């Protein structure tokens, strides 16, 4: 207990230096947490993927469509529960800066395939009933103040023309890992207009979403499905939803790696800051450690004193950093449009990593001072002039 008291008193001996070190660690932990959160947000789509969903797209490229006629053939494959489909609609709402995912979906099956989108029954029925109805995520509704009955006008670009959709349902994401910023409307509504205005583009599906009964069959079903359309006008590529999402972020892989690398560079910086403080403190107290040894304190006692001091500083810094991370990440997510980072929250694993890193840094930063304190003989320590 008294050794702990001595440890605490030593920690507070140079209040300004200790405070600055703690602050430095806290800032580094915030930066670490923030970068990790950005990386997590980038991978959110992959992490939120369901193992029992497969995605079938055009084998040449995602931007090429598939025939609607594939639907029934896919549905006949053993192990397939539901076949749904979507088209990336895009368009411009207000201006090009107002970005959010707008997709034409098979209204009958989409909500069944994506059970993580929670919609009240009455709103679901209204949405299914009206051909120009749309459903928006709760986060999107909050961002643009959409209410049931509001009309969302969109200038089409991939699908030219003026489009208007009536908000008939607002979905709640099942949990914070689910994107709450999407807008869905009826694929049939899109297809009907295409039949009238651009008949050559009617009956086109962007990609199929296939719900399978057993995730273990994913490989077999994918092979069978792709084999089914081999040598056809539009060959397919089927993969798990996670692999499909991974494909989207592959192009930004280098940036992600850089962010990952930077987050660990920050840990190195924490270690240097704390290591420097501990080395200075231990050097200043060389004589005191010699006196303690003279009085009979063992190497173990000195180790506890130094490591404890280092850990107190690092854990205080980590604690403050973690506490600050929440409002800072929250503020950031308020400042940027929700649709940029639909899923932006601090994952528990980020906190564990930050805490673990601080703990490891605290222990590592004390190593050199401990080694020095143990190695210095009492006689040399007593003669030391700091």
């Amino acid at each position, binding site marked *: 207990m008294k050794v702990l008291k001595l440890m605490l008193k030593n920690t507070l001996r140079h209040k300004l230096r200790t405070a600055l070190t703690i602050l430095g660690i806290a800032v580094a932990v915030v930066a670490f947490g923030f970068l990790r959160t950005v990386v997590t947000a980038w991978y959110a789509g992959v992490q939120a993927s369901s193992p029992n969903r497969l995605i079938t797209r055009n084998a040449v490229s995602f931007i090429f469509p598939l025939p609607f006629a594939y639907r029934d053939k896919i549905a006949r494959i053993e192990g397939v529960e539901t076949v749904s489909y979507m088209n990336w609609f895009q368009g411009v709402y207000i201006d090009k800066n107002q970005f959010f995912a707008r997709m034409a979906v098979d209204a009958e099956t989409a909500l069944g395939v994506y059970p993580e989108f929670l919609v009240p029954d009455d709103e679901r029925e209204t949405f299914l009933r009206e051909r120009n109805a749309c459903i928006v995520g709760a986060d999107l509704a909050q961002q643009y103040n959409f209410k049931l009955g509001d009309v969302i006008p969109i200038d089409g670009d991939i699908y030219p023309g003026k489009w208007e959709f009536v908000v008939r349902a607002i979905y709640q994401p099942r949990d914070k890992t689910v994107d709450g910023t999407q807008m869905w409307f009826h694929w049939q509504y899109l297809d009907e207009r295409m039949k009238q205005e651009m008949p050559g583009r009617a009956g086109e599906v962007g990609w199929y979403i296939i719900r399978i009964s057993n995730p273990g069959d994913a490989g077999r079903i994918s092979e069978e499905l792709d084999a089914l359309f081999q040598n056809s006008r539009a060959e397919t590529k089927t993969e798990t939803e996670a692999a499909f999402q991974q494909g989207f972020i592959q192009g930004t892989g280098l940036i992600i790696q850089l962010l990952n690398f930077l987050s660990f560079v920050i840990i190195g910086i924490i270690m240097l800051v704390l290591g420097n403080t501990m080395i200075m403190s231990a050097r200043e107290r060389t004589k005191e450690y010699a006196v303690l040894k003279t009085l009979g*304190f063992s190497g173990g006692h000195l180790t506890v004193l130094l490591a404890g001091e280092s850990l107190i500083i690092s854990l205080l810094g980590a604690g403050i950093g973690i506490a600050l991370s929440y409002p800072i990440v929250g503020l950031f997510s308020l400042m940027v449009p929700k649709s940029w980072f639909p899923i932006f929250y601090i994952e528990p694993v980020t906190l564990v990593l930050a805490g673990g890193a601080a703990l490891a840094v605290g222990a590592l930063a004390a190593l050199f001072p401990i080694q020095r304190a143990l190695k210095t003989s009492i006689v040399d320590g007593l003669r030391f002039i700091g």
Partner: protein
Amino acid sequence: MASIIQVQSVSKSYWRDSFEIPVLNNISLDVPEGEFLGLMGPSGSGKTTLLNLIAGIDRPTKGKILVGNTDIATLSESQLAKWRSHNVGFIFQFYNLMPVLTAFENVELPLLLTSLSKKERRDHVDMALKVVGLSDRMHHYPKQLSGGQEQRVAIARAIASDPLILVADEPTGDLDKHSAEEILTLLERLNKEFKKTIVMVTHDPRAAEKAHTVRQLDKGELQ
């Protein structure tokens, strides 16, 4: 009276880079129990080195040192640390108190290594501070005390665990005449009233006068 300290043919050399620097040369010395021994000599004569060897904070290059029948040169580092905590009280020239601890806590420090209960530790500390006349300053930090008072706290720390011997390295070297006199009187009292064996290194002839025996060291040899 039986010898409590026996220094037998002890030599000590230090190595600086590749040079061997002999400090003590074949020293033999017996200190009877209850003795107040003064070690004098010019700077570099080896006084402090001999004191350090007796106190077990340094090891001889050659020879044997028995303190209370324990051959301290044969003890491992951890055994030696434990031995010091039970058998030796140290008084340094510059007091060497922990600046972040109060007088009470400084005196209590060596007792933390014993199996004494909190109450027993408190009793020991109270008694030690009473002996040095600083009961009223127990909650003061070193920087709130004068040099003489700091040294008295250091003496209280040295006697708190009731060690076999007290070693003092220039205990008055950093004090004014009046404070030095107080410290010497205190050491004399510890020797006479409490029967403490004291080995004191000093340059100060007035300090040496308080010792029963004074031995001179010169160029690493006892005169």
